[in-house]
């Protein structure tokens, strides 16, 4: 009799456990993104300036600015084309330097992309083989980062093209 009760209790409690495990699992977002991996420091890297091909260290970029915005782009990436007008809008209304990182691109193609759509960037760096983007923790193009330029920590990440709302958010974050 006692044995039966214990069995019943065990079966019931395991059923309840399984039910709640699956129930909680239902509500959990299983779409993985690195968007929440923020406040991480970007380690120093070296790259080449897009037009002059001069070697530049990330730590020496815009030394007088408290924040910088880093945008990873490429001429072959369609969403980048879509986002470009928002980058230009962002650059017009903000005192923060906008740094472009040209991802796995051909120089000629990238140059004609900029002459066609305008160049919002203060500095453009090259990422020929995509290793700098991995150093930053990026998936690909386009991605935009608001970075504290004093300690080089990421404040906010935008995966994919930025929209007008993101532009407003970046503007208000970079004012603080």
């Amino acid at each position, binding site marked *: 009799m006692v044995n039966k009760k214990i069995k019943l209790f065990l079966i019931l409690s395991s059923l309840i456990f399984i039910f709640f495990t699956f129930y909680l699992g239902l509500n959990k977002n299983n779409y*993985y993104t*690195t968007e929440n*991996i923020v406040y*991480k420091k970007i380690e120093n890297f070296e790259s080449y300036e897009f037009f002059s091909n001069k070697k530049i260290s990330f730590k020496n970029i815009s030394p007088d600015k408290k924040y910088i915005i880093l945008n990873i782009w490429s001429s072959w990436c369609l969403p980048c084309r879509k986002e470009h007008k928002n980058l230009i809008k962002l650059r017009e209304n903000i005192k923060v330097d906008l740094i472009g990182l040209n*991802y*796995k691109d051909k120089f000629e193609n990238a140059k004609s992309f900029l002459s066609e759509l305008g160049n919002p960037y203060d500095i453009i760096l090259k990422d020929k*083989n*995509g*290793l700098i*983007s*991995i*150093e*930053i*923790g990026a*998936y*690909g193009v386009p991605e935009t980062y608001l970075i504290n330029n004093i300690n080089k920590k990421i404040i906010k990440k935008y995966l994919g093209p930025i929209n007008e709302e993101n532009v407003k958010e970046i503007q208000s974050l970079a004012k603080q």
Partner: protein
Amino acid sequence: MNNKFNIISLIIFFLFINYSFADEKIKRIDKVSKNLRCLICQGQSVYDSQSEFALSIRDLIIKKIDEGETDDEIYDYLKVKYGDWIIYDPKFDKNTILLWLIPLILFIFGGLLIFRKVIIIK
């Protein structure tokens, strides 16, 4: 004649050494990239995928191996950048303790049940 033979065998020896080292390196690149999830692909590893992301990660693995880093150092580097999700084989820590222990507990529990049944039948 003897001298020629020596030179030829030396060349073959070096070619072989070079070949086996290269082979070893490719095996390591494959092994590491098979254990890394391509984060922008659906159910593919870095090894399987031809996306720009996976190709860059493979370049990174080659660079890190050339710099003399171990497999674990490469995994740790990528874990800092992208989180634990990028590794297929989860490490044993406080977040994954249930994942590792539940099969073990079920195994022991089931074994006990079978053992008791067998004893009772006997």
